[in-house]
């Protein structure tokens, strides 16, 4: 069992670090929030909606309210930076003018305005992750879920990414950051939830630290 007796409430606008060794259940928790995994018992409630009651055809709309970022970036190698972000809007049925405007805006926010035409393989690890964040932001989500976003990055790039998430949070978006990187967690502070073997072992509401 990946998760066991997790009872957790996260408020609008919080910045939550989810920490713990691999296999602690951080990713499972995140997958449940976008209904990629379903709990065998218990409830996942998001915006007052019990996800178990959400019909399958509504899942795409749930996922537009939640931006997701992963360790492996999940960018399309065949599309350039601009197209990678635009793709998220295209498959949601936005019209072309809207797409151009929104994509320019988010690329500026993540600092990739001058790399629009570059393909993922021409970007550094940090830039790739910022591009993934831009894609996650383009739907103007209420929540950003970041699953080990710094796992493939060096120290400097990791801090860039975290600072970006921080700024996004300051603009009012809830951020849930799953990581096992203690330096990052200790820099961010804020709320830190520690997990181990599928259970929450510690929930520090303020100035949390990574404690092993």
């Amino acid at each position, binding site marked *: 069992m990946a998760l066991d007796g997790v009872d957790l409430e996260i408020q609008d606008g919080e910045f939550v670090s989810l920490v713990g060794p691999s296999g602690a259940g951080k990713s499972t928790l995140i997958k449940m929030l976008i209904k990629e995994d379903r709990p065998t018992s218990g409830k996942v409630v998001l915006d007052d909606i019990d996800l178990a009651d959400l019909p399958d055809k*509504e899942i*795409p709309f749930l996922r537009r309210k939640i931006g997701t970022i992963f360790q492996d970036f999940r960018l*399309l190698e065949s599309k350039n930076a601009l197209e990678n972000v635009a793709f*998220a809007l295209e*498959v949601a*049925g936005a019209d072309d003018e809207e797409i151009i405007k929104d994509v320019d805006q988010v690329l500026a926010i993540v600092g990739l305005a001058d790399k629009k035409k570059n393909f993922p393989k021409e970007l550094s690890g940090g830039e790739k992750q910022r591009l993934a964040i831009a*894609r996650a932001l383009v739907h103007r989500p209420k929540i950003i879920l970041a699953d080990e976003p710094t796992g493939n990055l060096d120290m400097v790039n990791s801090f860039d990414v975290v600072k970006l998430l921080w700024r996004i949070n300051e603009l009012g978006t809830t951020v849930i950051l799953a990581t096992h990187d203690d330096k990052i967690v200790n820099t961010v502070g804020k709320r830190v939830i520690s997990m181990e073997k599928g259970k929450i072992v510690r929930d520090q509401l303020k100035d949390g630290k990574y404690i092993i």
Partner: protein
Amino acid sequence: MSDKLPSSQSLKRIVSSGWVNFRRNSFMSFGATGVMALALLVFSGLIVLNFFTSQVVTFLDEKVDVSVYFQNDAKEDQILEIKSDLEEFGNVRTVNYISQDQALEDFKNRHRNDQLIQDSIVELDSNPLQASLNVKAVDPSQYASIAQFLEGNALKTVIDKISFYENELAINRIRGISNTFSRGGLGVTLLLAMVAVLVTFNTIRLTIYNKREEIEIMKLVGATNWHIRGPFLVEGGFYGLFASLLTLAVFYPSTYFISNKLLGFAPDINLFNHYLGNIGQMFFIVIGAGLLIGVFSSFIAIRKHLKV
């Protein structure tokens, strides 16, 4: 908010994405399109065969008549007596008398370009052709009773043969052959259609496999099911469309070619003109069948291999 049908903008994106799938997959596309075109071609052949048979049978039905051939020693007044007997018989429309001399004249006319035959005729001492009566009935099904009537005639001895049975045999044989071909053709069509579905199914499955990453990302960013499935259905449709166009591109020239050959022994049936006249209908049937096979194959591939 619900999973409503895509807007025109989305539809455009879905179609263009399907087109890109089709184009990028060129080698596999070639196979799928080729097999499908083969199935459609056999199917078109079947349509032509059925049309041709029905034409031939109608043509022969109209040509059916009873020809009564007389012994060489039959006297003209005996023949004319039988003729007037026949004219009184209810089912007879016309009776035409062809004397021995007339028959020879007709024969010479028919072969006037053949020097060998002309020379042979000159060599002959007597006229080898028989006098005959040509009987047309009001209703083609009445020929048996006319033949029966002749069999019972008092002057039956001067009659050499009645050539009605042979025609009927020919008609039945044509019907029989055509039925066999039709059934065989239908079997082959179904078999090829099945192979086409399998090959297309496999091609689409491969596309789905190649695009698993993109599909994963599409789900992640909240693409509707239509957006994920649509391009593959469109891709299947493109295989069908191109296969149909290929089929039609082969079909019309072949019909033209065959038509010219057939004109030799069935001058009343012009296949090419018939299908040129019905070009709209033919396009509709072939393209419709192609799209059906393509989209159906794609649909089962999606059902089996694309979880959304």
